[in-house]
């Protein structure tokens, strides 16, 4: 089954390439983060309704965005892996899932931390909050399924199938949850109450989102390298690599 679709789809060639890409994305992430944090804390004015608490928006919203984007990207990799039987795609999907779950968790936690001062409650069953919670469940299901299957190729395929089923369902879930909350008389507060966004705030959020995005790429590449090492443990290239790393101790491959 050797489709030499693309030279870098083989772990052996992708591993060093990824290694070269990681620092670039890491630096980009750092630069965007510094710029974003500068805007969020130094430039953006105090909100007259919410006071300084609104600054949570600069991590909350980018995290929420990333949680959704990553799921879609992950499903796309999974589909590609299933369709082309390409190992690398499946590994990318697997590498993205934990980061996606972390961002989902961060969105939930920062949202809660925002909700407490604004609404007086850590949690309300608002449509958007609820669907974010369900998204967390979907991520966890994907991770749990993959981690409980030993055979990596089977895990890849099963995970990919699950991600695809999830993608079909995500919009359905999203709209049903939305509808659910508007039909029952909703909570008196909702996130629409957040202030109309000023341009600086939007810029800050965008920069932070870019930082998160670059970070995600860097971390996913790191994780995919780990996965490659673990899976191809008994192949020659990994053995050679591990020996060469030792001989040039401290130098990254």
């Amino acid at each position, binding site marked *: *089954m050797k489709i030499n679709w693309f030279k870098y789809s083989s772990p052996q060639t992708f591993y060093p390439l990824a290694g070269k890409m990681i620092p670039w994305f890491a630096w980009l992430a750092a630069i965007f983060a510094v710029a974003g944090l500068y805007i969020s804390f130094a430039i953006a004015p105090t909100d007259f309704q919410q006071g300084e608490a609104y600054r949570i928006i600069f991590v909350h919203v980018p995290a929420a965005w990333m949680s959704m984007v990553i799921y879609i990207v992950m499903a796309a990799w999974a589909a590609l892996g299933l369709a082309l039987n390409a190992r690398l795609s499946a590994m990318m999907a697997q590498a993205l899932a934990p980061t996606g779950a972390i961002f989902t968790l961060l969105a939930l936690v920062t949202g809660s931390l925002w909700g407490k001062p604004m609404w007086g409650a850590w949690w309300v069953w608002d449509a958007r909050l609820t669907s974010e919670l369900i998204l967390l469940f979907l991520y966890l299901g994907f991770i749990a399924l993959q981690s409980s299957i030993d*055979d990596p190729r089977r895990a890849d395929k099963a995970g990919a199938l699950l991600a695809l089923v999830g993608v079909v369902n995500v919009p359905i879930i999203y709209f049903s949850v939305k509808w659910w909350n508007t039909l029952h008389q909703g909570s008196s507060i909702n996130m629409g109450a957040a202030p109309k966004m000023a341009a600086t705030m939007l810029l800050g959020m965008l920069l932070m989102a870019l930082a998160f995005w670059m970070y995600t790429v860097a971390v996913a590449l790191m994780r995919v390298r780990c996965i490659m090492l673990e*899976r191809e443990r008994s192949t020659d290239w990994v053995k050679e690599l591990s020996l060469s790393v030792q001989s040039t101790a401290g130098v990254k491959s």
Partner: protein
Amino acid sequence: MLMAQGLACLRGDRLLFKNVGFELSAGGLMYVLGENGSGKSSLLRLLCGLLTPEEGTVFWHGQAIKQNAEIYQSNLTYIGHLNGLKDDLTALENLQISARLAGNEVNQEEALNSLAAIGIARCANLPVGVLSQGQKRRVALARLWLSRSKLWVLDEPFAALDTASVEVLAARLSEHMSNGGMTIITTHQDVVINAQSTQTLRLSA
């Protein structure tokens, strides 16, 4: 009629075998031999299409079995380690259902006859759950008296059978081959089976 080319099988991260090929024609019998863990069962599952080979292809009448799965499968009878029996159904019901699922319509009398052939007519109306290991195996093997498939793939059919049953089964296999059927079999026992042509595939761990 059945041909395999360059088969390789990877389980976990171990390559069990590679470059396995053979040709089996009508009336042919093939023994798959090898030590425990050498990959005999895996090879048989590959040949049935239950496992996807890492490399290589299996052909049935010149066509890859993945391409014309339905035709191939209607010519195939596979009996693996597992008997494929339901503990709550009687031997007779189990036999009829598994034969029908494989596409052979059978009536009750035919089913009873085949149970009698392998010597467990007495258990026909007992739920399979209460049978002994060897009796269960015999219920599963009784399908061979009903099967009209060309190709039989049998994974250690003789294990747990008593001597009388081994002989009965060997006779049935010989009959199948003399009717132009094909059989692929793994076993650790020495059993005499007659065939128009006999070949041996030895896997080494």
